[in-house]
C-alpha cells in the first residue's frame, strides 16, 4: 500500500474506534470509496454485533447490521423468520416498476423458479461450456498490451463476464456490452453518479424497459424455433415458465445478468489486486499451480463482491440478545462475516493455501445460496491457469472503487504487464 493510503487507513481506524457506536454508518458511501469500511465492521463485530442503525443512515429507513459469521448463518438458514421478500437490498422495490425475481421470493415460488434455471449451471453443462470459456479467455489475454498501462476492469473483467453471459443466453455477441450496461444500471445507487438523482425512478424504468424490449425479441425468436441449451430457449419452452408474465421473465433475466456479472467481474479484478499486494502468495501460486482452486476460493472470501444481503423479519425474534421486530430490515454483512476472527484464522491475510478455503460466506448460505457459484469458480480457475501460462507478473498501478455498499468492487484498475513468459 502507498503511504497516503496507509495514513487514510490509520485515520479511519482511529475514527472507527472512537466515534459513538450510534454514529457508525456502514452505508456511508465514503467508506466504500476510500476502502475504510472494514475498520467499522471490526468495531461492530466486537462491540455490537447485532446493531440497529437509525433511519437517517439509509434513504429507506432504519435497519439492523448483523456482522458476525455465526449470527449471519443463523439468519440465512431461517428463511421462515427472515424473508427475502420484498427485496434483498435495503432499497424497497419501486411501486410502479416491480421486477419480480426468485432471489427476492420465498418458497414455494422461489424453489419452483430456481429449479427451472438450475440446469444451465449443472456439472454436465459446465463441462460442455469449459472449452469455449477457455478459448475466449485465451483470446482476450493474448490481445492485452505488454509494457503499457491499461484498465484491467474494462479489458478483462468486464469483457470476460460479458462474453460469459452472452454465451449463457446465446445473446448477440456484438451487443454483449449491453448486458454490462444493464447490470450496472440495475445495481447503481441513485447517488452513484450514473443517474440524475432527481429523475432516478424515471431513468431507471426507461433503461429497464429497453432491456425488456430487447429480451422480448430474443424470447419471440426462441419460442418459434427448436428448443436449445441456452437460458432463454429453456425459459421459452419450459413447462413452468413459458407462461411467465413479461415483467417476471425480465426480473429473472436481470437476476442472472447481475448475478453473473458484477460478482465475477469484481472477483477477477480482486484476484489481480490480492496477488499484487501479496507477492509471497503469488510466488507460492506460481510454484504450485495446483493451488489455483484454493486461491480462487480465498479471493472470493477476501473480496466478498456482494457485501450484504437483506432479509425482512416476519415475526418478532431475538438475535444476539437484541429484539428484532416484525417488519424490520436486517442486513447480513457477508463482508464482515468473512473477516470474523473467531471463525476464520488470520482473516485479514490473503493465503492461497489456506486450509478449508471453501469455508467462507461470500455465496450466502441456505436456500438462496448462489446458483452460479460453480460457474464463477470455473471462470476464475481458467483465467488464472491461462494467466500463469502467459504473464510472470501483473502490476497494479492505480484503482478506483465502486461507490456502493452492496457491490464491493472496482470501477477501474490500471495495471501493467511488464513482459510475457
Amino acid at each position, binding site marked *: 500500500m502507498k503511504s497516503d493510503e496507509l495514513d487514510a487507513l490509520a485515520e479511519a481506524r482511529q475514527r472507527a474506534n472512537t466515534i459513538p457506536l450510534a454514529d457508525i454508518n456502514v452505508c456511508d458511501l465514503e467508506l466504500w470509496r476510500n476502502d475504510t469500511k472494514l475498520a467499522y465492521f471490526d468495531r461492530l463485530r466486537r462491540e455490537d454485533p447485532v446493531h440497529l442503525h437509525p433511519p437517517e443512515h439509509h434513504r429507506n429507513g432504519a435497519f439492523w447490521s448483523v456482522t458476525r459469521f455465526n449470527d449471519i448463518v443463523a439468519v440465512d*438458514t431461517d428463511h421462515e423468520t427472515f424473508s427475502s421478500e420484498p427485496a434483498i437490498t435495503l432499497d424497497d422495490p419501486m411501486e410502479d416498476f416491480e421486477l419480480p425475481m426468485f432471489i427476492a421470493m420465498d418458497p414455494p415460488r422461489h424453489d419452483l423458479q430456481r429449479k427451472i434455471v438450475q440446469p444451465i449451471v449443472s*456439472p454436465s453443462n459446465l463441462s460442455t461450456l469449459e472449452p469455449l470459456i477457455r478459448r475466449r479467455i485465451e483470446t482476450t489475454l493474448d490481445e492485452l498490451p505488454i509494457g503499457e498501462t491499461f484498465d484491467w476492469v474494462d479489458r478483462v473483467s468486464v469483457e470476460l463476464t460479458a462474453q460469459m453471459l452472452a454465451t449463457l443466453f446465446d445473446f448477440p455477441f456484438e451487443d454483449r456490452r449491453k448486458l454490462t450496461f444493464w447490470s450496472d444500471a440495475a445495481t447503481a445507487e441513485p447517488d452513484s453518479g450514473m443517474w440524475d438523482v432527481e429523475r432516478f425512478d424515471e431513468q431507471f424504468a426507461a433503461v429497464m424497459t429497453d432491456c425488456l424490449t430487447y429480451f422480448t425479441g430474443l424470447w419471440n425468436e426462441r419460442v418459434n424455433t427448436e428448443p436449445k441449451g441456452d437460458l432463454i430457449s429453456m425459459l421459452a419452452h419450459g413447462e413452468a415458465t413459458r407462461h411467465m408474465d413479461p415483467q417476471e421473465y425480465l426480473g429473472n433475466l436481470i437476476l442472472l445478468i447481475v448475478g453473473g456479472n458484477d460478482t465475477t467481474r469484481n472477483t477477477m479484478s480482486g484476484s489481480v489486486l490480492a496477488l499484487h499486494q501479496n507477492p509471497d502468495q503469488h510466488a507460492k501460486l506460481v510454484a504450485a499451480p495446483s493451488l489455483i482452486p484454493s486461491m480462487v476460493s480465498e479471493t472470493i472470501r477476501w473480496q466478498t463482491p456482494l457485501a450484504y444481503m437483506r432479509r425482512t423479519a416476519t415475526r418478532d425474534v431475538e438475535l444476539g440478545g437484541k429484539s428484532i421486530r416484525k417488519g424490520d430490515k436486517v442486513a447480513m454483512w457477508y463482508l464482515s462475516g468473512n473477516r470474523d476472527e473467531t471463525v476464520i484464522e488470520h482473516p485479514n491475510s490473503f493465503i492461497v493455501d489456506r486450509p*478449508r478455503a471453501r469455508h*467462507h460466506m461470500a455465496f450466502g*448460505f*441456505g436456500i438462496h*445460496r448462489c446458483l452460479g457459484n*460453480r460457474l464463477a469458480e470455473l471462470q476464475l480457475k481458467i483465467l488464472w491457469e491461462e494467466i500463469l501460462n502467459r504473464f510472470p507478473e501483473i502490476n497494479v498501478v492505480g484503482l478506483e472503487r465502486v461507490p456502493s455498499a452492496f457491490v464491493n468492487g472496482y470501477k477501474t484498475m490500471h495495471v501493467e504487464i511488464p513482459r510475457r513468459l
Partner: protein
Amino acid sequence: MVKITFIEHSGVEHHVEEKPGLSVMEIAVKHSIPGIDADCGGACACATCHVYVDPAWMERVGGCGNLEESMLGFADTVAPTSRLGCQIQLTGQLDGLVVRLPKAQH
C-alpha cells in the same frame, strides 16, 4: 469406535473408524475423503456434503429434516437415498454404515 465406509463415485472404497458422535461429513473431512466439500461447515446450508445412503441402511438412518430437504432440492443428481452428510450423526446404532459419494458436489 464405530465403522463407516465411503465409496467414491469411481468405486474406490475408504473404510474408517471413529469415535461415535461425529457427523458423516465431519468424519469425511477429518479423514480427507475426497468428494465432500462441506462449504458451510455443517450448518445444513450449502448442500456440498451430499451422500447416497446404502439402501440397506435407509431405515436406520431415517428421513431428512425440513431445511435439509429444501437444500437437497437444489443439489444435482439427487436420488431417494440422498442425504446431507452433516445431518447424519454416526452413533453406535449406525455402526458399519455405507455411503456413496456423488460425481460432484454441486
